[in-house]
């Protein structure tokens, strides 16, 4: 077949309109790079959002409560989430799990031990244990225990260390010290008052509250609870795969709920990035379309300009299949080269992105995603199919 194709090369000249062909090849290359970049950017962004390496631990837990507005002030019942509202939140597709935050129905006073002379009124809340990110063995409480495990918000210690202690000339306290300090906790309801020892077992970024184990809360609310105090939850903690999900943000806004806005800020970035990526991808597709158009016109031109020769070849017994193979062989290797070069460009870009982002503590894979390779394969296949269809159509039409 090689000798035959060598002779065909002298008969069917593919050199005409070479300028146009080179332009179209360039167009195909650019289109391919744009499409691959769009695919890769999408994959990188998903990686930044969801991959374990980039997950900061608060990312997938959100505490939701109603927005406090002026008209609500002084009417605590308006802050309460009704059962209907709780069910509605739980029904949302982005909510993987949810837990009500139970407040204490008793008064709590905490006192620091020894020389610190520090006492404060406070409160406790509890959430189901599965929402606790401090996995300490002593996060357990059983009736009869005098020691209550407590989790403090990280922010609380920061407020003390960098705000309060500096202004009051008090010593700063490390997490370890706080954990070692036995706090005196006085629980009362006006009638009875008992003293327990509070033991700080950890600090949480996830839920900004003073947390005690649910078992203690249930027991204590039963024992010290003041009738008539709030019995329903006003805060709910949800687990979500993607706090930047625009649907989640919309749900919160629509229902007048609020949460830590900081955790949602990715949502806007994401919309912007997705728009940019879509625009790049769209231009890539448009360019690809025109490149395909020019290729198919180029093939048409070659076949038209060799019409007589092709007719004689067929008369002499050349099979349309042979001609088709010959013509495709003239173009397909170039397309594969374009595909490989485009992929290489994307590999280099991705590696650079990996290096640059790593400096900002963001991890993306140093190699393009499988999707990107698949995308390149799809584009090449598309070009091949369009060429095949064009060649077939015009070779057959010509006789």
């Amino acid at each position, binding site marked *: 077949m090689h000798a035959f194709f060598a002779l065909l090369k002298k008969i069917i000249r593919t050199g005409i309109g070479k300028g146009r062909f080179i332009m179209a090849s360039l167009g195909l290359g650019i289109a391919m790079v744009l499409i691959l970049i769009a695919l890769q950017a999408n994959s990188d962004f998903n990686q930044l959002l969801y991959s374990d390496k980039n997950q900061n631990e608060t990312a997938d837990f959100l505490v939701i409560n109603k927005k406090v507005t002026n008209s609500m002030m002084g009417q605590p019942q308006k802050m309460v989430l009704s059962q209907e509202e709780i069910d509605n939140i739980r029904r949302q597709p982005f909510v993987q799990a949810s837990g009500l935050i139970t407040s204490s129905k008793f008064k709590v006073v905490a006192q620091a031990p020894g020389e610190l002379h520090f006492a404060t009124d406070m409160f406790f809340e509890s959430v189901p244990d599965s929402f606790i990110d401090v996995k300490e063995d002593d996060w357990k409480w059983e009736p009869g225990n005098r020691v209550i495990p407590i989790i403090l918000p990280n922010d609380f210690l920061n407020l003390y260390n960098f705000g309060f202690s500096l202004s009051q000339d008090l010593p700063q306290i490390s997490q370890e010290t706080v954990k070692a300090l036995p706090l005196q906790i006085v629980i009362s309801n006006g009638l009875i008052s008992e003293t327990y020892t509070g033991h700080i077992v950890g600090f949480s970024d996830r839920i900004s509250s003073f947390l005690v184990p649910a078992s203690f809360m249930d027991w204590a609310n039963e024992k010290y609870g003041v009738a008539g105090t709030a019995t329903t939850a006003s805060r709910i903690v949800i687990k979500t795969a993607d706090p930047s999900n625009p649907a989640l943000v919309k749900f919160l806004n629509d229902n007048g709920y609020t949460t830590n806005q900081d955790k949602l800020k990715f949502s806007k970035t994401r919309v912007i990035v997705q728009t940019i990526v879509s625009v790049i991808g769209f231009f890539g597709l448009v360019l690809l379309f025109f490149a395909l158009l020019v290729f198919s016109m180029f093939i048409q031109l070659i076949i038209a300009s060799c019409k007589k020769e092709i007719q004689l070849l067929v008369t002499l*017994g050349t099979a*349309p299949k042979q001609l088709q193979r010959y013509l495709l062989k003239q173009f397909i290797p170039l397309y594969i080269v374009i595909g490989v070069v485009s992929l290489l460009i994307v590999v280099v870009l991705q590696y650079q992105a990996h290096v640059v982002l790593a400096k900002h503590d963001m991890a993306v894979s140093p190699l393009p995603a499988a999707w990107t390779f698949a995308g390149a394969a799809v584009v090449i296949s598309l070009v091949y199919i369009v060429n095949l269809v064009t060649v077939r159509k015009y070779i057959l039409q010509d006789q």
Partner: protein
Amino acid sequence: MQIQLDQLLPVPLKDKILQRKSGIWNENIVFNPGSFVKIKAPSGTGKTTLVHYLYNIRNDYTGKVLVNGKPWSDYGRNEIALLRQQQLSVIFQDLRLFEQLTALENIELKRVMIPQPYCTPERVQEMAARLNVTHVLHQSSKTLSYGERQRIAIIRALVQPFEWLLMDEPFSHLDEENTRRAAALIAEECSARKAGFILTDLDDDQHFAYNVLYQL
């Protein structure tokens, strides 16, 4: 391979043909494999048209040309190509060489069109020597005389396997000596393949031991 004509009648020549007696047109004729067939025809009676019908490059006729019992119209393009590569060869009156190729390349094109060439390159050289065209093999076919081109077209038709060879005035531009040499070569190649041929010409001739004679 059997070639059969079933009431074949060219549309453009219809009226003219129906006015007179023809041994081929509008008849039922079977060309038996391996036979040497001569069709004698005066100018303008559709000699070339017949060859083109038999080779299936024209189809403006009524009736049928049956190849192995099947009309040409039932064959697909790739099937036809296969027949032309393996079973049916042709020498056109207008020769139809590629002007952009040399004489040898024109022959080679046909030889290497099939994956397993029937002839060796040496055999091509031998045939060229027999027909006295060795010296022009590397010239562009554009520069050859008509007689030289005719001999190249003959060699081209003989480098492929075939069961039937169609020839349309194949010796029209050859002198007696060269005609004799070409006819001997063709007869030899046909016998070697146990193939038949259909030759059209204007006059009677003694170039071959014909089995069948027709008047168009």
